């Protein structure tokens, strides 16, 4: 009985962390789908969400909701600038060049934040208090409910956007075949910009809702970004349910691994799963196989 309670707790905590991975994975997938770029700076957008919110809250003394809005807007601007200055000049770059540029950008953003806001960890107050809630033998915090809620909203929002609006469908067209999309009049450049904007917004939102639980500092983005990418790969880099499931599964397996096997090797377990998926089923758990045209 005790073990069952424990496992329930592992699973529920894992799902909460997994939801964050899902959001980050989603933002990876959005950029990857429209540009083919693996944005190593994605984790930094997540970090910016938390850091900017704290800045707006503490220094500018804005109320919580306004602070969050300003932070998301600020990160979106950062994403825009990043796309314009670093991605746009490289028209036909090799994957290697893109990887290096995004790594360079992530170092740059981290350095700027470190200089402007210091290296200290900061805490964001929880949105609705800290009293634990009991659920089927496990405990959650109200912030976990916020995480689940926001994740569901974002997923529904993305689904609606990509499948029921013109811009969304245009972005999907770009991801299938940029040249064809161009021929039918879609401005590919603008779609790429839009994908960065959405991706930065989603990423920063993830950063904001997790900050009350995990606190934030200039370097929280690195690991979160990598785990988010694992989630995206597991889900097949799709902009929908696959990535979300990938994130949830990753978070749960990580939590179970830490509790039942070994806490020290927790991250190793996550990356080991990533390697297995890459070796055995690189198209992700939920997609059918792809063929490559020569």
């Amino acid at each position, binding site marked *: 009985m005790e073990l069952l309670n424990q496992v329930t707790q592992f699973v529920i905590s894992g799902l909460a962390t997994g939801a964050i991975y899902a959001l980050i994975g989603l933002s990876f997938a959005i950029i990857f789908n429209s540009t083919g770029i693996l944005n190593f700076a994605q984790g930094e957008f997540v970090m910016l969400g938390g850091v900017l919110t704290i800045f707006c809250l503490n220094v500018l003394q804005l109320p919580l909701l306004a602070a969050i809005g300003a932070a998301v807007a600020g990160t979106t601007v950062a994403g825009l600038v990043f796309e314009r200055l670093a991605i746009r000049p490289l028209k036909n770059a090799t994957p290697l060049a893109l990887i290096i540029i995004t790594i360079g950008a992530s170092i740059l953003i981290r350095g700027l934040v470190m200089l402007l806001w210091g290296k200290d960890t900061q805490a964001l107050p929880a949105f609705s208090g800290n009293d634990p809630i009991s659920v089927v033998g496990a405990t959650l915090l109200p912030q976990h409910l916020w995480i689940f809620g926001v994740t569901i909203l974002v997923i529904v929002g993305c689904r609606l956007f990509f499948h029921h609006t013109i811009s969304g469908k245009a972005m999907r067209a770009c991801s299938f075949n940029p040249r064809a999309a161009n021929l039918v009049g879609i401005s590919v450049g603008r779609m790429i910009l839009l994908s960065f904007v959405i991706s930065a917004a989603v990423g920063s939102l993830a950063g904001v809702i997790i900050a009350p639980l995990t606190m934030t500092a200039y370097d929280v983005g690195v690991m979160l970004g990598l785990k988010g990418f694992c989630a995206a790969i597991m889900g097949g880099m799709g902009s929908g349910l696959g990535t979300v499931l990938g994130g949830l599964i990753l978070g749960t397996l990580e939590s179970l691994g830490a509790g039942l096997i070994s806490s*020290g090797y927790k*991250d190793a377990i996550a990356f080991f799963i990533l390697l297995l998926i890459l070796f055995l089923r690189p198209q992700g758990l939920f997609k059918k196989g792809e063929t490559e045209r020569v």
Partner: protein
Amino acid sequence: MKSDKLKFLVFCLVVLVAPLPLGGSYLTNVLIFVGINSILALGLNLLLGYAGQISLGQAAFFGLGAYGSGVLTTVYSFNPWVAMVVVALCVAAFAFAIGFPVLRLKGHYLAMATLGVGVIANIAFNETVDLTGGPSGLSGIPNLSLGGVIFDTDLRNYYLVWGFALVMILLSLNLVNSRFGRALRAIHDSEVAARVMGVNARLMKVQVFTLSAFISAIAGSLYCHVMTFISPTSFGFHTSVELLTMIVIGGLGSVYGSILGALLLTMLPELLRTFHDYDIIVYGLLLIVMTIYMPGGLVGIPAALRRLLPAGKAKGGANA
């Protein structure tokens, strides 16, 4: 070919006399690490610059070489030279084994897989406390010695490390100009076309991966005997990124480019010291700017300049 040999001899001469004007300066110590980074950069360049396979986990092999040599010589009292060879062969075998599944991937997926290998290796160094000392590091590693000479001063270690580096450069130059090297470049250009021409691309990719791992392991062994203390923080993701930066800045696919990149990046903290805390920003900017505007790296500058010359003066096409 002749100019290649001449270039190499001149380079050997430069390496030989470089420490002399430095006297007792600490720069000799820095040049030792330039040497180790050069060896690492050469290994990665073969994989990345010539064969075009992205690897973000090179630090794993570097670390395995260092920890392998470190543990064998401290806990099991192996002879350091024997340990170096044994460890390099084991690391190469390991690379060969995981090379097959890993190198089936391409582009970003390959990058992530190698990153994963690197992270797992780093975690293993950290967690196997009883063997490696864990995060507190492994100390008391003996210096290398040959005949009666113990390599425990900066000058001696400099010649030791650069001796290895020169051998590696020679090997790389020969490899690059051989059938194997040409096949690698064919794979880089278009793997499918190379396969059609009869190149066993799959096996060759694994072979170059293994060679690169072997070279990195040797660099790791040298590193641990020079430092006499190692800790997991020196073998993390940021080390792999630094190595990548070195060969990109120096020039992908250029042997001397790797050396130049290693030199620049190892000395960079010295040059950036005037910027104090801003050096991390300069580092990031450097990466971005160089990748966008100088994709050929530093060795590509002469060729780029030639292209800028007015059309009348240029003699035929630029030979990059």
